[in-house]
């Protein structure tokens, strides 16, 4: 018995040494040639997504899995663990490179911390597409596909103006501004987009920001948390709107919009025109009930389909279409981007906007 085990142990080591010699040749990387000439139609396509904590990512993962399979590719869709997203994602991308993925689609947990892995992927001949969130400080990112977030802001600003005009024929209107968490690069993009529409109206006196808080630092909502937006709105109502009415509130997303509405209701005031974003089920209900004024529909299905279309084009060896080659500077290069137009949703067009959405469609009936 003893002899047998010892021999086995030694044999195992020897076997490893031998098998190594034979695999040596195929260990060197593929090189860049494959990127230009397309790749096999059944190639491995890696998709690295953040943790499963958000409904949106879970939906996207399922859509990628089905969509890639349907297109004939081998899909490898990975989520990072909830508490170790950055490291998991780094390791998963490395593993995809090792497995020879031809395209790697990354929904970054932290867009600033993937430079090394994106470089490794690029050096191995894989094409890297940033999905929804831009990857920063790397010259090796090939494409970016996302909804146009500046446009989201513009639409929110326009919706606020439309809602106010419908509510009261002439100004001046009292409004308050809310923006997202300051550690999220998108927060400023939303806010600047909205202000590009609102600022001229503030300047000509049509809009009056009652509290005078128009700076993004003053309007920020730490961590995108509802409780922070609610307590800021409580404070504003007390300090500024004792005897005035607030006509409109710019809110960057649905969660904060509902927090603002909750605060106004608790203060016993009329609900102002409140914007939103994300098409959360609760907010769609609120819009249909006539409370929240608008939200933004960024259909994950369309975004995933766009990313998979890019993979199909790359497979043939062609260059995928992009519609923005100057806005997305990630610190090392201006990343060619394909931006999808977001859709503004109010009570008027909700039925039409969510017609293809099995979950939201019934709410609009």
């Amino acid at each position, binding site marked *: 018995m003893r002899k047998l085990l010892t021999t086995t142990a030694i044999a195992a080591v020897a076997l490893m040494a031998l098998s190594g010699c034979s695999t040596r040749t195929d260990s060197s990387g593929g090189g860049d040639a494959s990127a230009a000439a397309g790749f096999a139609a059944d190639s491995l396509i890696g998709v690295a997504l953040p943790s499963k904590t958000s409904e949106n990512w879970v939906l996207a993962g399922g859509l990628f899995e089905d969509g890639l399979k349907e297109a004939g590719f081998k899909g490898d869709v990975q989520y990072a663990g909830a508490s170790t997203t950055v490291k998991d994602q780094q390791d998963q991308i490395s593993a995809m490179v090792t497995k020879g993925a031809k395209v790697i689609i990354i929904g970054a947990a932290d867009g*600033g911390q993937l430079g090394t892995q994106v470089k490794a992927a690029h050096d191995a001949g894989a094409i890297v597409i940033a999905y929804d969130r831009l990857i920063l400080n790397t010259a090796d990112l090939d494409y970016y596909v996302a909804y146009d977030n500046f446009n989201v802001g513009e639409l929110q600003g326009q919706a606020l103006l439309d809602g106010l005009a419908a509510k009261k024929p002439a100004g001046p209107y009292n409004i308050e501004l809310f923006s997202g968490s300051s550690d999220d690069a998108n927060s400023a993009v939303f806010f600047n987009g909205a202000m590009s529409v609102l600022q001229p109206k503030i300047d000509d006196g049509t809009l009056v920001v009652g509290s005078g808080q128009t700076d993004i630092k003053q309007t920020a909502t730490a961590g995108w948390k509802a409780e922070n937006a609610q307590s800021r709105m409580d404070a504003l109502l007390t300090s500024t709107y004792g005897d005035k009415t607030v006509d409109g509130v710019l809110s960057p997303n649905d969660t904060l919009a509902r927090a603002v509405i909750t605060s106004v209701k608790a203060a016993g005031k009329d609900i102002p025109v409140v914007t939103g974003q994300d098409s959360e089920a609760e907010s769609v209900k609120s819009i249909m009930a006539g409370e929240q004024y608008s939200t933004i529909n960024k259909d994950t299905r369309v975004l995933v389909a766009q990313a998979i279309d890019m993979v199909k084009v790359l497979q043939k060896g062609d260059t995928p279409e992009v519609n923005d080659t100057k806005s997305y500077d990630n610190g090392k290069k201006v990343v060619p981007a394909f931006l999808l137009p977001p859709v503004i949703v109010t009570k008027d067009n909700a039925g039409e906007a969510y017609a293809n959405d099995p979950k939201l469609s019934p709410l609009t009936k």
Partner: protein
Amino acid sequence: MSADTSPRGGLRDLKKIFGGGSSNVRQFGILFSLIAIIVLFQVLTNGLTLSSGNLINLVSQYSYILILAIGMVMVIIAGHIDLSVGSVAAFAGIVVATAMQDWNLPWPLAILLGLFVGVLIGAWQGFWVAYIGVPAFIVTLAGMLIFRGGNQVIGNANTVPVPDGFTVIGSGYLPEVGPFTGYNNLTLLLGLVIAVAVILMEWRARRVQKIMGSTPAPLWVSVLKVVLLVAVVIYATVLFAGGREGTSFPVSGIILGVLVLFYAFITRNTIFGRHVYAVGGNKLAAELSGVKSRRVNFLVMMNMSILASLAGMIFVARSVASGPQDGLSWELDAIAAVFIGGAAVSGGIGTVTGSIVGGLVMAVLNNGLQLLGVGADLVQIIKGLVLLIAVGVDVWNKSQGRPSLIGFLTRKSKTSEFPPEPPAVVPTSGTPETARPSDVSS
């Protein structure tokens, strides 16, 4: 039957890769498991596990966890625990990244600054543990909160990028120099040096054994051992040197290697190292024997924080930025590596090399599962179970007085370890552990 003793001697000699001590069998078992896991994943992934690209990834992905494990095993040997390593790493990382961004500090100085931050934090924690007497669990739990918060205060919960020069320690490789050979020349040289060192060390060990008057294992056992080790070194060298152009043995791996050699020497061969074991094994006895236990505890805690700072900087360099999530749950990975590597919760037992092998078991497992496309959720479950089973089997076997599953496989060879007689005296069959009741019953 006469040939029977030799392979056993070979196994025993292989076990001498580790230090001495009663956890020897356990550690040899872990090495055996590591080889088994590598072979398993090599088959399951169709050879991807032992491919150049993957081995290089493996080293750069886990070097900082293994660096933490080095410090952690010393903390655990001394009978403490350190929960703050992840937060300390994140804190040092953000300080270094901010210093380079805002003050334009050159990166070599920034690394020194990072290490200095580690010294300060370590002195703070060591002071509370050693001189005030607050249990390390509490001190480092507090540290975990304090330095995580500190990271977010300094970085404003933002991600701070670092300059390219700095990234060398986390994502750099041995440079390409000399004539074109199809391999990375410096990595080949490194491999050659290690191979020669293996041969010299075995030769020296035999000489010392002779001088001390003990009977060395038969010559062919030594030769076999050296041949096997050199084969592994050559094999690894060829893989590391033959990676994609521009990649080779990672710089972080070299840092790790130097630290392993240094700390293995410290713990095994220096007075301070023996004092750490003494304090962890029996504090009172150690103090009565003149060991300054406070000083030992202080230095051990301080050392851990310095290594944590280094690990944090390597991670930041690899991620090309310092972020608010850095270091989350690293303490658990490091602690798991140490216990899988054969350390005892009660202190006094454990080795640096054992912890490295324990960490590698987790690393290969993680990496192999990722190559197979297993999701992060399942990977966590599997890693949890492996930790529980590895330590559970060990604890159970201690209470039962019989070896673990792995120990069972290698049990016969263990017998040559405990009796002081030369191996030839040990019976070649039957149950040599008859003194143990469980063996009689089984």
